[in-house]
């Protein structure tokens, strides 16, 4: 019974502990920090348009562009266009050096 009384007493004083909580103030720079957060956030809103283009994506895109350029350059170097054209010209006797004339 005594224990039950003690428990009831403890519960009561625990409930009462809330009533003794004192008011506290925010830290002195709260307003400055909040104002900065509000108006810096506004500037960030403008930047948000390209926010998906993260540095990782930027690097990946750069690597792709460089690889594409190297591939195109190699292709250009090894192109067989000129030799194909001269072969064609020779086959159909259109080449300047193989030009023959019955007058010669």
């Amino acid at each position: 019974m005594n224990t039950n009384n003690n428990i009831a007493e403890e519960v009561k004083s625990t409930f009462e502990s809330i009533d003794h909580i004192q008011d506290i103030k925010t830290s002195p720079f709260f307003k400055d920090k909040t104002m900065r957060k509000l108006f810096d956030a506004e500037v960030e809103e403008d930047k948000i348009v390209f926010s998906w283009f993260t540095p990782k994506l930027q690097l990946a895109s750069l690597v792709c562009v460089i690889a594409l350029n190297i591939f195109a350059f190699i292709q250009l170097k090894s192109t067989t266009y000129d030799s194909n054209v001269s072969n064609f010209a020779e086959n159909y006797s259109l080449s300047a050096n193989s030009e023959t004339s019955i007058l010669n």
Partner: protein
Amino acid sequence: MLEEKFINELGQGTRKAYSQLIDDYEQKVFATCISFVPNKEDAEDIAQEVFVEVFKSIKKFKARSKLSTWIYRITTNKCLEFIRKKNAKKRFAYMQSIFGNEIPFDKTNYFTEFNHPGVLLENKEKSATIFKAINQLPESQKVVFTLHKVDGKSYNEISEITEKSMSSIESLMFRAKKNLQQQLEYYYKNEV
């Protein structure tokens, strides 16, 4: 009429209006935050988030309620969101520790470190106990009990903030007190 003008100024996003808003509401918002989250740093962070939310959403504010009621509603929601996230993190860390992953696990069962400068030293243990008990309550009871008993708001104000009838508030308050009573009795019975 004055409030309407002030809301318009807030909508235009002028520094002057927000400076005024923070002057008027910083202590009130912070008091509500620290009532839900008894940790000064966390409560200040949440209070800041409240003002950021006001800044972002003021254009959506339809003035169906008072500005103060709307701000307290945002505050309450932000606090509950914070508590939910922290509780989820605790549960995740607990699960990780069970499955043997070596994530340092904070063994306390409360969502934050109890650090309320307004609590007197001799009451610290008891206050921490009741805050832990409040955290075990269902959300609707937690909101009503905290706003009334810890933050000191009237039933009428709580009714406006939560958009519930007065009778619901009274009923939630009654159930919250009963549940807390049971929890504390169980706690003190098993304490020794």
